């Protein structure tokens, strides 16, 4: 199983983070983060709340600014230059906890907006691409509705389709199932699993440990702004090394 998962991983580096530090005012949120993500890797980042896991992936597409260290995304060094940031953002898709669909636009318009305005794709073509991805997340029939008319699970799948329409090389998921009703979690996870099977590079912050076991090829455990432990999922769950990890796992898998 583990070997099979490794298959799609190439030695091409997708994201490279070295000695990255971030502060909120005087509060040191991220401390000396070193992380190399290879093309095709599926990484799950776990940890207690406030451990900096969301902040970490938000630094990758510069939604949060880091103060020290280097982040290289797909060969481009992240700098303060707006053009550079926009370029990286258009290569990196992001799915949020609260979906953040645009409520004043239809589902289809949500999906075609960025391709039309950022990629300058002709409208017709952008709509075809959007319908392709909406079919993939299994809601093409909702294309002309507004986000407010959809269930949470459907909205999150639209959000995934919206990101995919930009043909990103890397996908970031920031607790994509945390705001969902329990019965809707699996439909979103299924979409993510499908995406992983196609070889998408993914970084997921999530508490879905079943998903981590099934899909991830690496699990990262963070606490107090640091990477405490990382390993293959089998080893990580069955044989955690650090006491902090053991405690965390016992708390979330305890019942």
């Amino acid at each position, binding site marked *: 199983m583990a070997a099979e998962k490794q298959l799609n991983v190439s030695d091409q580096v997708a994201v490279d983070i070295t000695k990255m530090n971030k502060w909120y005012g005087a509060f040191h949120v991220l401390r000396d983060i070193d992380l190399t993500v290879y093309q095709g890797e599926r990484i799950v980042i776990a940890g207690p709340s406030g451990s900096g896991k969301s902040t970490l992936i938000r630094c990758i*597409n*510069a*939604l949060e600014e880091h103060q020290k260290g280097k982040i290289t995304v797909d060969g481009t060094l992240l700098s303060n230059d*707006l053009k550079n940031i*926009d*370029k990286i*953002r*258009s*290569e*990196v*898709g*992001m799915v*949020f906890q*609260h979906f*953040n*669909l*645009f*409520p*004043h636009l239809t589902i289809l318009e949500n999906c075609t*907006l*960025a391709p039309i*305005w*950022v990629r300058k794709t002709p409208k017709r073509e952008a709509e075809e691409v959007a319908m392709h991805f909406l079919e993939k997340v299994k809601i093409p029939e909702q294309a002309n509705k*507004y*986000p*407010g*008319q959809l269930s949470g699970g459907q909205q999150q799948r639209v959000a995934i389709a*919206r*990101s995919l329409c*930009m043909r990103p090389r890397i996908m970031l998921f920031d607790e994509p199932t945390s705001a969902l009703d329990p019965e809707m979690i699996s439909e979103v996870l299924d979409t993510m699993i499908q995406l992983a099977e196609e070889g998408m590079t993914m970084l997921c912050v999530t508490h879905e440990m079943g998903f981590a076991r099934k899909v991830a090829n690496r699990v990262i455990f963070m606490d107090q702004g640091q990477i405490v432990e990382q390993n293959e999922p089998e080893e990580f769950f069955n044989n955690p090394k650090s006491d902090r990890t053991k405690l965390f796992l016992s708390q979330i898998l305890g019942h």
Partner: protein
Amino acid sequence: MARDQLAFVRTHMLPEAPPPTAQTGAVKWLRENLFSSPGNALLTLVSAYVVFQIVISTAPWFINGVWESPSLTACREILDGKMGGCFAVLTERWNQLLFGFKYPSELYWRPGLAFVLLFIAAAPVLFGKIFPRKMLIFTGLYPFIAYWLIWGGSVLVPVFALLGVLVGAFTYSRVVTISAGVAVIAAFVAALIFWILSGYVTGPMENVMAIQAVASRDMGGFMINLMLGVVCVSLSLPLGILLALGRQSSMPIIKWICVVFIEFIRGVPLITLLFVANVVLAYFLPPGTNFDLILRVIIMITMFSSAYIAEVIRGGLAALPRGQYEAGDSLGLDYAQSMQLIILPQALKISIPGIVNVAVGLFKDTTLVSVISMFDIVGMIRGPILASSEWNGVYWELFGFACVLFFITCYGISQYSQWLERQLRTDHR
């Protein structure tokens, strides 16, 4: 027995059923809304009596109203002691109430035509889904057409003004690839240079294709209120948006310019600004320059209402969750795109009631120009009409007429805004 009742298995699911058919009809409505309790029945009867008394006491004033008479004295003779309104002042002085007392009467058709064209120009902006987008070309040309119709003079003036705008737009499109901010400034400077240069052309050629010119000081009546209202609302909305965005800017200089402007303007009464426009501005201008009074007033009212609109829009911007900004950012949209496509459409939708509030207030505040000796509708009533020997003493009819004109316009604006809000609702339908 009790044990048996604990277990239950549904054998078939209930189909969806319609709600019980409500009893309808006028009697039910009356009973529910007007006579639901003895207290409410009493209130209903008392209010009905009050309404009845008001109608009874004012009806003769309308019914006996005199619509044709040369003066108030003649009107009172016709009434012969009966109660009745002298509406003759409206039929006799309607032209002054609408156009002022100096606008040449043979040219009334020109502002009239401009007024009719206003609806055609506004239609595609107000009802974008119903009218074809190509009509927006006419909307763009309308200000120049309307200017020419109302002020008259050589056609070259509005044509060169339009060309100046085009020069600015062209400059903008050339420079925008470098930086949007620089492009705006460059476009403004280019247009300004073009206008100053074109002054040398239009000056000596003021009779080329000219229609009879009317000076600003000859204009008056409700026309002035409408002109100021339409121009100032349409200018202060974009300016207010820029100020609101500027106030949120991360660039400190831009931010502070906007904050100081907004706070200063909001802290000063409109009437003092109008006095500034009327008197003080003249001191700052080079001697001999003829800076049109209407233009000065337009600048002041626009500044005033744009500060208010900016604050209303800031409220709308603040109401948007941060996730909307982040979603736009994460898709790679730049600042201008995410404002134009994501943030402003939602923020403006939230701000509609507030913006309409400011717009209606602004429109009514245009009557304040009467204190700086402009003869708008209130200025006309208080000045030339009430001061005339024929109509000295007719208050209710004249001010009532002004109220009706303002009410129709403001009520129309309010109804439009409610319609627009319903149109833009996307949450549940």
